[in-house]
Structures are given as structure tokens and as C-alpha cells.
């Protein structure tokens, strides 16, 4: 694998964004303006660490698919979807081909201020290239003057008081009240997923999927759930970690992305629940980073831009990052 990031785009803002992100991650960038030119890079046997691809329409996706299929098996295995970053301007529901196809790994929804998001995404890019996981709320976060707070929950019924504390913390640190409520909802959904959806038995079957979510369960041993919240001035984040590593790409896509069939969900009461929570966090301006190490751990981090107005917050670029090890 060569030490460079490949950007396939004609857009100057994409270039500014990716160059800054790659600089943070400490990797040089090569820019080509077409999928055809990217083909020449691949033919020379050079496999980039990560590929950023501008996806203005389905045709570009098909062209990219053909290019990947024309490469050797070794190349295809090296360039897994985890390493692909799609840049889109349309809503995710307008790209069903991306969700249905085999490459949905990292999706970035542009905004007017994309070029200013490079620094933030650089750290996300670093996380995608790390074997150990994102570690975004660890020492690196604190080195930038960030503040973190850890919550260890001993029982499921401690969730509500924990999320009230999360809401209050973000308000204290200058987040808009309305954004703080979205963050509290994100913490709520992430905790519920870790407490009730993640636990699986030896055969990989969910243990609590049918259990009422108001049930008081002890969270001991492998069932322990840790939440870390943090803010670094520009962003707020909520991270929830479980020790099951049971998250599957197909389920994630089905729950978080495939619900975007229409411009809104039309829910039957029997299907409401799993997934819509996280989907609405994304719709309401949050970004999500999923990192799953099979049978070991799953960490999900939700990011929120600190802004003076809700309009500014909503206008910020968003991403969905999925990493499976």
C-alpha cells in the first residue's frame, strides 16, 4: 500500500478539504480530475491509503464500480470500502445506488463550508486508518485543550440521569439548548443500542432484542457500557463503547441508511425503534463514526458542531463513517 491519499474530483473546495484532512493525518495527497485518470494510477500498481471520490451522480458511481472490477483481486481486497470516502452534495436518500452497492464505507455530505471541515475530518481519517480504532476522545483530544467526562453505567435505569447530565454539560460549554437536546437524544440512542442491541450470545444471537427497553438490567462484566463526552471548542462528541463487537455492516446500512427511501420515514409501529434513532441524529445535524472490532468491541461516536445559531450548525458538513476490523 502506497502512502498517499487519492482525491478524484474537479472541485476546488474538495481539494482544499482533502488536502487539509490529509495534512492532519500526515499523508500526502494526489489529485486527479476523473475516474479515468484514477485508473491510470491504479494500473501503475499504486494502491492509495484512502480514496476520496466526488459523486455527483449515479453515472460516476457506475464508472468507479467498473474501474474497481477491472483491477486485480489483490487490489480489490486492499481497497476495501473502509478506505473509500464518497463526497456527495445531495441527500443520502437520493443515492440509493451507494447504499445498495458494496462500497458504502464513509459518506460525506457537503455543505457550503466544506473547506473549513478538513481539520476535523483529518482526525476522522486518522481514525479510519488506525487498527486500534478512532481514539478521538483520548489523549489527542485533551492535547488540543479539550475537556472529556466519563460515565460508567451500572444499570440500564441510570441512562436517563446520565443523558440529563450530558445535556446540561453541553449547555454549560456554550452549545445551543436545541443542539444540546439533539446531543442528549444521540447519547440516549447510543446507550440503548449498547445496552439492548449489542449483547449477543456465543452463537451471535441478540440477547435482549425483545426485552422492553424500560427493563432494569445490571450492566456488569462484558455488559458494562462506557460513555465519554467531550468538547474541544469547535466540536462536541459523545462516544459509547460496548464489549461485544456485534455490529454488522449490512444491519447498519439497513437501519441507518436504508430507511431513507422517501424524504421522510413512513413508519409502521412494529418497525419503529432500532435505527430510526441514529438516522434522526444524522438528519438533525450530527455526524456518526462507527468502529467495530468483531467480537471485541464497538465504539460509536456522534459529533456535533458548536455554532452560534442552529442554522449555522445545520449547515455544517456531516459524515457517516463505518469501519469494520
Amino acid at each position, binding site marked *: 500500500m502506497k502512502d498517499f491519499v487519492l482525491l478524484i474530483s474537479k472541485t476546488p473546495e474538495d481539494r482544499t478539504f482533502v488536502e487539509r484532512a490529509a495534512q492532519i493525518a500526515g499523508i500526502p495527497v494526489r489529485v486527479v480530475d476523473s475516474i479515468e485518470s484514477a485508473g491510470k494510477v491504479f494500473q501503475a500498481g499504486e494502491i492509495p491509503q484512502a480514496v476520496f471520490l466526488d459523486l455527483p451522480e449515479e453515472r460516476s458511481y457506475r464508472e468507479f464500480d467498473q474501474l474497481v472490477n477491472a483491477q486485480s483481486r489483490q487490489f480489490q481486497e486492499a481497497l476495501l470500502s473502509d478506505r473509500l470516502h464518497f463526497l456527495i452534495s445531495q441527500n443520502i436518500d437520493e443515492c440509493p445506488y451507494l447504499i445498495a452497492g458494496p462500497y458504502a464505507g464513509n459518506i460525506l455530505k457537503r455543505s457550503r463550508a466544506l473547506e473549513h471541515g478538513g481539520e476535523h475530518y483529518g482526525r476522522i481519517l486518522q481514525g479510519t486508518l488506525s487498527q486500534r480504532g478512532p481514539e478521538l476522545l483520548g489523549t489527542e483530544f485533551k492535547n488540543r485543550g479539550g475537556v472529556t467526562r466519563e460515565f460508567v453505567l451500572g444499570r440500564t435505569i441510570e441512562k*436517563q440521569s446520565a443523558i*440529563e447530565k450530558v445535556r446540561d454539560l453541553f449547555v454549560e460549554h456554550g452549545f*445551543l*439548548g*436545541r443542539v444540546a*437536546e*439533539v446531543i*442528549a*437524544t444521540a447519547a*440516549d*440512542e447510543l446507550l*440503548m443500542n449498547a445496552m439492548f442491541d449489542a449483547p449477543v450470545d456465543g452463537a451471535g444471537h441478540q440477547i435482549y432484542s425483545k426485552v*422492553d*427497553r*424500560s427493563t432494569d438490567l445490571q450492566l456488569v462484566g462484558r455488559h458494562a457500557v462506557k460513555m465519554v463526552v467531550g468538547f474541544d471548542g469547535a466540536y462536541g462528541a459523545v462516544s459509547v463503547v460496548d464489549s461485544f463487537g456485534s455490529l454488522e455492516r449490512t444491519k447498519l446500512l439497513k437501519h441507518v441508511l436504508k430507511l431513507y427511501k*422517501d*424524504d*421522510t*420515514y*413512513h*413508519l409502521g*409501529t412494529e418497525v*419503529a*425503534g*432500532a*435505527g*430510526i*434513532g441514529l438516522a*434522526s441524529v444524522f*438528519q*438533525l445535524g450530527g455526524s456518526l463514526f462507527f468502529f467495530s472490532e468483531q467480537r471485541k468491541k464497538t465504539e460509536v461516536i456522534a459529533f456535533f458542531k458548536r455554532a*452560534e*445559531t*442552529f*442554522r449555522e450548525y*445545520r*449547515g455544517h458538513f456531516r459524515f457517516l463513517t463505518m469501519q469494520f476490523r
Partner: protein
Amino acid sequence: MLLNVIKEQRNNTLLIRLIGAIDEDVQFESVVGLVPQEIIVSCREIPRINSIGVKAWMKYFQALRQKGVKFTFIECSTAIVEQFNLISNLISGGTVESIYVPFSCTKCKSELIGLFKCEDLKKSGFTLPSLTCSKCSGPVVFDDIPEEYFRFLQR
């Protein structure tokens, strides 16, 4: 915080005020109790609703609808409006009479809300009047994306 319900009788109609976050602990049937043929539901003090709360909400209001109960949502908080926009059938056959609209003060940066009747918003083509901040009298601006915040009213 458990959902609190305050009931007030207004002529032939029962006003139900929902206070608190709507989540897995909400038992609408038991906290609301028996309802007449027509109810008004005030959503002013609902700061957020999670996915389990959404499920409980739909189950409860769709059952009321099947029993022929007429219900009107008033004073919907920004959190409820967001969910009406995201989930097309969350209104469950009811009527939305009024919503809170978010504003931001351009001078002191305060977050403010104003109550508007949905009928008036539609009639004005979602044009909002010039308003001033209740804290510093500075000019305030609508603080969201119009095509997103008013989407459920345009369906």
C-alpha cells in the same frame, strides 16, 4: 425525568399538557387515562423524544384515531416539529394547530421561540414578521432552514 401529564377541562374538550422527555418509560394509556371524543394535546414542554418514545406515541395516537377520537396538537416544541418533519405519519391522523418557531437574536445571540398558528404560517407563505428580542430588543431572525422546519406543513 418521567413524563408528567396535566389535564384541564375546557368546555367539552379535554386539554392534555405533556411535560418532559418522551422515552421508554412513557405509558400514555395509564398517565392520560380515559379520554372523551375530542382532545387537545399541548406539546410545549416536550424537550425531546427518543425512538422508543416515537413508537409509543404512534401506537397511542393511532389507537385513539381508530376509536374515533379527534385530537389536535397545539404549541408543538421545536423537538416535536423536528420529528413531524422526519416521520411522515407521526401526526397519526390528528391536526397540528400551532407550533413554536425558533429565532436567534442578532445582537445578544439568545435562542428564542415564538408561537405561530399553522394556518397563518401557510397563508403567509411561511414569511415571518419582523420581531425583536425579549431580552435586549435587538432584531431577531428565524433560526433554522425554512424548507426543512416547515416541511411537514407543505406535505
